[in-house]
C-alpha cells in the first residue's frame, strides 16, 4: 500500500476518476420547513395534545374499559359459581351418607 502523502499523481487521479453525480432534491427545502412547522405546532399543554389525538385516545380508552369490565364481570360470575357449587356440595354431603362418611374421614 502506497502511503506517500506527497504523491503527485494522486490529485489528478482523483479528479479524473472520482465524480459524484449531483442529485437534486426539489422537495428538500419544503420538507425541512414542514418539519420546522410540525415542531412549532406541537401543543404545549396536555389538553392541547388530547384535542389533537382525541379520536385515537377515545378508541383506546373505550377498548380498555370494555375489556376491563368484561374481565370484572367474568371474575364476579366465576366467584358466584364457586360459592353456589360449595353450597350445593354442602347440602348433598348432608343428605348422602357415603359422602358424609367420606368427608368426615378425609385427611
Amino acid at each position, binding site marked *: 500500500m502506497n502511503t506517500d502523502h506527497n504523491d503527485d499523481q494522486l490529485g489528478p487521479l482523483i479528479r479524473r476518476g472520482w465524480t459524484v453525480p449531483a442529485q437534486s432534491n426539489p422537495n428538500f427545502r419544503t420538507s425541512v420547513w414542514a418539519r420546522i412547522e410540525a415542531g412549532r405546532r406541537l401543543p404545549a399543554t396536555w389538553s392541547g395534545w388530547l384535542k389533537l389525538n382525541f379520536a385515537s385516545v377515545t378508541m383506546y380508552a373505550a377498548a380498555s374499559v370494555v375489556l376491563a369490565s368484561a374481565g370484572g364481570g367474568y*371474575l364476579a360470575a366465576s366467584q358466584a359459581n364457586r*360459592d353456589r357449587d360449595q353450597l350445593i356440595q354442602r*347440602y348433598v354431603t348432608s*343428605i348422602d351418607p357415603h359422602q358424609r362418611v367420606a368427608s368426615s374421614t378425609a385427611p
Partner: protein
Amino acid sequence: MKYRWITAGIIAVVALAAGCLAYVCFHRPLPDSVAHAHDSLAWVREEFKLSPEKMAQVEAMHESYELVCADHCQAIADSRKELQRVRDSHASEAEIAAAMTRVTSVDAQCIASTQKHIREIAAVIGGEDGRRYLSIVLPRVASFDHSAPATLDMQKTPTYDGPGRK
C-alpha cells in the same frame, strides 16, 4: 412523548375502575349467615326462594332425614369395619363374601334411601324448580363413587364433574 404516557396512565386507571365496578355490580356475595354458618339447607333457601310453608316442610323433612342419614353412616362404617375385621382375621372365603355382600347391601339401601328423600324434597318444591332441584342433586349423588370397591377407611372421592354426567 410524556403526554402519551400521562394519557396511558389515565386510561389504565379508568379501565381498572371500570373493572372493579363491573365486579361489584355482577358479584352476588353470599349473606354472612349463609357463608359462615354450617347451614346445609342454605343452598335450597337461596336458590329456590320457597314460600315459608314449603321451606318449613323441607326443613322438617331434612331434619328427620338427618337422623336416618346418621344411622346409614353408622351402618356403612360398621359394615366396612366388619369386612376389614374378617379380612384381617384371615377368615374363610365364605365369611369374607358374606361381609362383602353385607357392605353392598348397606350401600344399596343407603343410596335408595337418599334418592327417595331427594325425590320427596323435589315433590315438595314442585314444578319446574322441583325438576331443577332433581337435575342438580341427583347426579351428584348418583355420580359419587358408591359402587367402586371402597378402601376400608372409606376414602372415596366424589367423581361428579358436571350435571350432564350420569
